[in-house]
Each structure stands twice: as structure tokens, then as C-alpha cells.
């Protein structure tokens, strides 16, 4: 930090030193303690999603009709019983961890698929002729006003219920979001001077789109994707809750809430814990997305960098 201060006083013809991107991001993350906690929590969730099923699948599916709806906080029992057990006596803690994988996979898959397709279409719509652009935009309108439940029922009926198809359903409904954002950004960026400069050099449309415009759009899209991840997770749980999403014996957090619903009055923990898992994860994603919005914006970045090490 001391160096940086000096740099403002260094002679004119030298250039400000800058730490590498990773170090910068790490510093900015450190500066925002909420985002830091969120990031740590999300890393934990991702690790659980990866190792959870292989590690705990057996525990999570072991039924015990005599220990059904076991209450939580019985700390004298095995650790996995601390959050209680479900209607088949399966311990909730391992079940939530095992469900992490499906929940995360569906959301991640849907976000990635919709982001890729939406961004590509958005780039085309922003750069192609008015007519092509109109066709794409009307298509986006159609998808936008297509009730997502109907999409779900149609896709799941025709293709069958599976994780992949559920991803597809959610991805379809989210494409317009990326499409519109990307198009709006492209329309703005293509007017910028550096794009014109590239055209003056003779750069092809493809080069301009992918080399000049896309990198500028990506921070916005990253932020959007983080936010959308949370949205898709909620949408997935809502679908599972309505019984047209993931079907047992597969599990997701949304499905767990749905299954616990009938025991609400006498075994609240069945729905409560998975609900809490959803809240914490979406909250973390929202926090991280807010942080990203600032961290990736050169104009606002100082807010975080300023808060960095206090004795700079």
C-alpha cells in the first residue's frame, strides 16, 4: 500500500504499478467481510456438492421407520442425527448434504446453459441487422411470456423427469434474461470508440464481437449469473415443491421442503433445515453478486480497495 501512495507522486512518464488480478480480487474480497463469509460458505457448499453423495449416500438413504421424525438437537446421538430425521427415519444432516449436489447441479447447469445460449443470441441480436435482431427479440418475448410451469410440464412429459431435463427447463426460461442484457450492452458498446477504432483497423465483425465487445460484457454477465444462480435455485425448489421438478428418490432441497410440508405442525425441522440451506446459499450468492458488481466495475472498485488493509 505504501508503494501505491508513492506512485501518485512518481514522475509523469512512469506508469502506476498494479498487483496481479488475483491478488487484487483477494484483497477486495478481504475488504468486504460479508462477501468473504459468503465466499467461504459457497466454497463449503461446493465441496459438499462434490463429495457429499459419495461420502454420505448410504447414511442419507438408510431408512428407519422406528426413528421417523426424530427431533433435532439430540446431541447425545450420532452427529448425523443432530438435525433430526425425516419421515422415513433418514437423518436430515446427511440428506441435506447429499441433496446439495442435485440442487447445485441443476442450478449451475441451468445458469451455464442459459448464459451461453442467451449471450450468443444477445451478441447476434445486438450486432446483426435490424431484422434478425427483431426476430430474436420476439423469440425472447415468446419465451418470456411462456409460463415456466408449462415449459416444465411439457419438457418433463415429453423427455421424462431427470436432472438434465430440469436443467433444460430452467435454462429455457432464463435465456431471455441474458439475451436482453447482452443485447443492450452490445448496442451500447458497439458505439464506443474502441470498437470504432477496431473497425477502422479492418477488424471483422466476429473479431469485434468476441475480442472487443464480449470481454466488456462479461463482468456484467458474471454478476448476473451469480444472481441468477440464486434465482434458479429458488425456481427449482418451487418446481420440486409443486411436484413437477425433481422426483424422489432423487433429492433436492426444494423437494425436502415439499416432503416435510405435511409434518409442519409436528415436525417442523423437516422443512426448516433445507429451507435454511436455501436461504443461506441464495443469501451468499446475492452478497457475492453485490460484491462482484463493485469489484468488477473499475469506476466503483475503489470502494473496496479503500477499505483494504487499514494501516496502508
Amino acid at each position, binding site marked *: 500500500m505504501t508503494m501505491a501512495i508513492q506512485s501518485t507522486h512518481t514522475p509523469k512518464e512512469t506508469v502506476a504499478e498494479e498487483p496481479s488480478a488475483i491478488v487484487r480480487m483477494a484483497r477486495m474480497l478481504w475488504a468486504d467481510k460479508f462477501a468473504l463469509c459468503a465466499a467461504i460458505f459457497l466454497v463449503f457448499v461446493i465441496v459438499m456438492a462434490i463429495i457429499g453423495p459419495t461420502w454420505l449416500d448410504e447414511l442419507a438413504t438408510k*431408512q428407519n*421407520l422406528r426413528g421417523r421424525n426424530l427431533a433435532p438437537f439430540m446431541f447425545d446421538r450420532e452427529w448425523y442425527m443432530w438435525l433430526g430425521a425425516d*419421515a*422415513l427415519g433418514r437423518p436430515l444432516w446427511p440428506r441435506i448434504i447429499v441433496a446439495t449436489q442435485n440442487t447445485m447441479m441443476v442450478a449451475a447447469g441451468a445458469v451455464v446453459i442459459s448464459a451461453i445460449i442467451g449471450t450468443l443470441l444477445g451478441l447476434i441480436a445486438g450486432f446483426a441487422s435490424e431484422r434478425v435482431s427483431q426476430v430474436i427479440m420476439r423469440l425472447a418475448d415468446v419465451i418470456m411470456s411462456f409460463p415456466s410451469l408449462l415449459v416444465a410440464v411439457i419438457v418433463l412429459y415429453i423427455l421424462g423427469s431427470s436432472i438434465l431435463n430440469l436443467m433444460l427447463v430452467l435454462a429455457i426460461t432464463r435465456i431471455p434474461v441474458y439475451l436482453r442484457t447482452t443485447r443492450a450492452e452490445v448496442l451500447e458498446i458497439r458505439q464506443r470508440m474502441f470498437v470504432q477504432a477496431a473497425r477502422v483497423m479492418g477488424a471483422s465483425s466476429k473479431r469485434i464481437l468476441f475480442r472487443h465487445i464480449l470481454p466488456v460484457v462479461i463482468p456484467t454477465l458474471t454478476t448476473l449469473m451469480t444472481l441468477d444462480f440464486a434465482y434458479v435455485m429458488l425456481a427449482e425448489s418451487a418446481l420440486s415443491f409443486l*411436484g413437477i421438478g425433481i422426483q*424422489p*428418490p432423487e433429492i433436492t432441497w426444494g423437494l425436502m421442503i415439499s416432503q416435510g410440508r*405435511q409434518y*409442519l*405442525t409436528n415436525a417442523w425441522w423437516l422443512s426448516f433445515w433445507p429451507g435454511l440451506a436455501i436461504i443461506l446459499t441464495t443469501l451468499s450468492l446475492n452478497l457475492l453478486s453485490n460484491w462482484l458488481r463493485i469489484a468488477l466495475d473499475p469506476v466503483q472498485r475503489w470502494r473496496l480497495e479503500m477499505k483494504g488493509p487499514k494501516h496502508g
Partner: protein
Amino acid sequence: MKTSHLFGAVLGSVIAFGAGIAPVHAASTDIKIVLPEEADLLEPCMATRSNIGRVIMENVSETLTELDVRTKQGVMPRLAEKWEQTGDGAWRFHLRQGVKFSDGKAFGAKDVKYSFDRIFSDKNVCESRRYFGGMKFDVKVVDDNTIDFKVDPVQPILPLLLSLVTIVPEGTPLEFVREPVGTGPYKLSNWTPGQQIVLDARDDYWGKKPAVTKATYVFRADPAVRAAMVQAGEADLAPSISQVEATNEKTDFSYLDSETVYLRIDGNIAPLNDVRVRKALNLAIDRQAFLGTLVPQDAVLATALVPPTTLGWNPDVKVFPYDPDQAKKLLEEAKAAGVPVDTPITVVARTANFPNVTEIMEAVQAQLQEVGFKIDLKFVEVAEHEVYYSKPFKDGRGPIIVAAMHDNSKGDPSFTMFFKYDSKGTQSGYADPKVDDLIARASAATGDERAKLWSQLIAYVHDDLVADVLLFHMVGYSRVSERLDFKPSIATNGMLQLSEIGFKN
């Protein structure tokens, strides 16, 4: 357009704010009933469907006969006073006199004939028509109060069948109606779709005046909510609540609800075409363990697809014991005989088909896997379930078991056996000549002979054919406000006679 009414209704609710949620009818003879789902229609000829029947069957629309389930007296007179079988198998019904429809018209034989004609009209698809599949009716009005039914083939249980046919006045549109007119003790006075249905007692009813003067039906999908409403005094009667909620002895009553849960086996496909495999399926399931856990304690383990109150129910047929070792042995035997027992079997179940369906099916899956079956459990929504459940079955399908629930509260197995076991039955997974023969003979028989044949069939299907995995005769729970005098019965599932409800003190 009705929109303006609705704005009015919403405004009305603003005014009703003052009323709050306090029970407004605490001491009156008006009651409120909370049902799980609203009827799409209130069409009399669809009254055999439970969500319609619970509102209008015998309340608004009456039938010629009525099956008594409380005192087990069999078929009782309602709009018909008496009936007899004439020589050639035809039936003559003598109708009650002085009966009036709620629109003021007098009831007579022509209305009965019209009701029958309407059911068979091609302007509608009345559900009750399904009970008369393959029959030729010749309905003749003898005089105002006498009517002859000549049916080909001869129907020994015609009086029972007529308990399913609601009578509408002559001139009722052939298309479905939404405002039924009937001879019952109540008339429909208000129906606000999505909100409530109101029945008011009629002054000019022919029979005994019921205690309940006005019944308001509201609809809540969530069983916990229904139970809570009665508890909070928001409603007086919730005919079905979940077992979990049924904790109060004073208000919560269980009843055998005529629904039978079973696993329908498609016996055409290997390895399910092998009887040892089917027996192993049966032996692998610990039915007893479900009772009091996922299935109500009072549920009855099933040995037939019809409940014990049904004609010809066979007490000698015993439930398969839980014997995983035997099941494993049978599977090994079958394997040794070249049966591909390792083929994964798909178990298809319907979401929200019956209470705890996911948990029950997951438990069943676990138990079957325990003895060595490879089970893919698949939950589908209602439309897809129907594709697996009913014929035509898909070509090239793998071994499929369908979890389903069957309802027969009519007292006679003929409403079940043909559909589920006959080679031409729409949900039948078998083509067994002996079964076909027994069904044909039993359907045509009367009296003890009929009961005996049904008993034989039930034993054969269960013990020899091992046609399916019969699980439970389910139990329903009703929550009844303490001010009401009402006990639910096996009929409560499909019919809720307001006249059976009284008030304490």
C-alpha cells in the same frame, strides 16, 4: 361478463372485515364443510366422482336406490319405493309419489327415463355411463310411477347399479350443467367458483327434514389447513384430514375409506411373468411395519382389491407374511430357471396419489432392494401415470409395476374385477382364462352363488396367480366439530349426506 361481480365480491370481503375470522355460526344449524378440492362441475350424472358426489349426491340429486353402509342392510329404497325382477330378467321399479324437484316440477317415471337417456347421450360424457359398459338398456315408462328396465345381458345387481344414477328432471340440457336440479333435501343456492358452494335445505322435500339447514363448502388443498380450520372453528367438518393431524380423540374419527393401495404388476413382461418373482415381491414387503408409521394404524392389510365389506370377500385368503429369506430363495430359484431377475424393474407412482405416497414408495423400494430386486422408482404426474396404468400398454416396455389406488365402495366386486384382472380389463396385466371365466360367471350370478364365485376369484388371484402386490385398505380421518353429531363411514369418501349430520344437544 361476471368480472363486475367479482370486484363486488372482493369489495364485499372488505366489508366483511369486521366479521374477522370468528366463527359466525356457533349456535346455528348452518355448517361449513372444508373439502380438499373443488368440483369442476356440479353435474348430477358425474356425481359418482368424489369431489362432485360429496356435495350433491343424495343432497341435491337423489337416486332410485341407495346402498346402506352403516347398518349393512344392502340396497335400500330412495326414490324407488320397491322393485322386483320380472320373468325375463327385467326389473320393475315402483317410484315414490309426491316427490318434487327443487324447481317445483313433480318427479315421475318420465324423469327416470330421461335421466337414463341423458347418460347415454353423445352430447356429454357422463361418468356414470361407465357402469353400464356392454349393456343394452330398454327403459319403458309403464305409468307415472312405474318404470321397467330390460337389460341385455341380464343384470342381477341392477338395483345396486341404480344407486349410481342420479335423477334429473325431464328437459335438463343434455350438455353438462353447472347448476343441478334434483329431488334431494337441499338445493344449490350459491356457487362462487374458487371460493364456496352453498346448499340450502328445501322446505318441500319429500322425506324427513334434516337437521342441517345450510351447508357451505369451502376448499383447501392442504390437510393440515383443513384440520386447523375445524380446530379454529372456521369450519365444522373436514371429511378428510391426514393421519398426522388426527390427534384429538374428541373430534377426529377414522373410517375405512374403501380405497385400496396396491402395486399393479404387468405380468406380461419378464421377469414379472414368473409367479415366483411375483411371490417374492409380495414376501419382501413388511406391510406391518407401515401401519402406524406411514400408513394409519387402523388401515387393514389387503388380501383383495375390494374392501372387506364387499360381497364375496374371502376371509380365508391370508396376507403374505414378511419373509425376506423366502423371497430371496424364490428369486434364486427363478434365476436358476433362467428368469432374468436382474432386469431393473420400474416402479411408477403418482405424486400426491394418496397420503405419504413418496415415503411409502421409497420404503417399498428399499424393502424390495433388500431382497435383491433392482428397482427404479419413478414419480410422475397424473397424466403420465395414466399412460402406464391403463391400456394400451407401450410396446417394447420393460418390466413395470404401477402403484395405484382403487376405490370400490359399492359393495360388489364387479366394479373392480373386470377392469383389473380380466384379459380385456383396461388396467389388467394378465390374460388368464380361469380369471376371465370366473369373472363372467360371477357377474351373471346372483345371491350366494355370486358371493361364492367372487370368493373363488379373490383366492385364485391372490394365492395362485399372485397377480399383484396388495398393500392396504386405507383409512381416512375426519375431523368433526364437537357440536356436530356425525360419524364418517366407508361412503364418506365419495358422498357426504348432510341428512346424516345432527347437532349435539
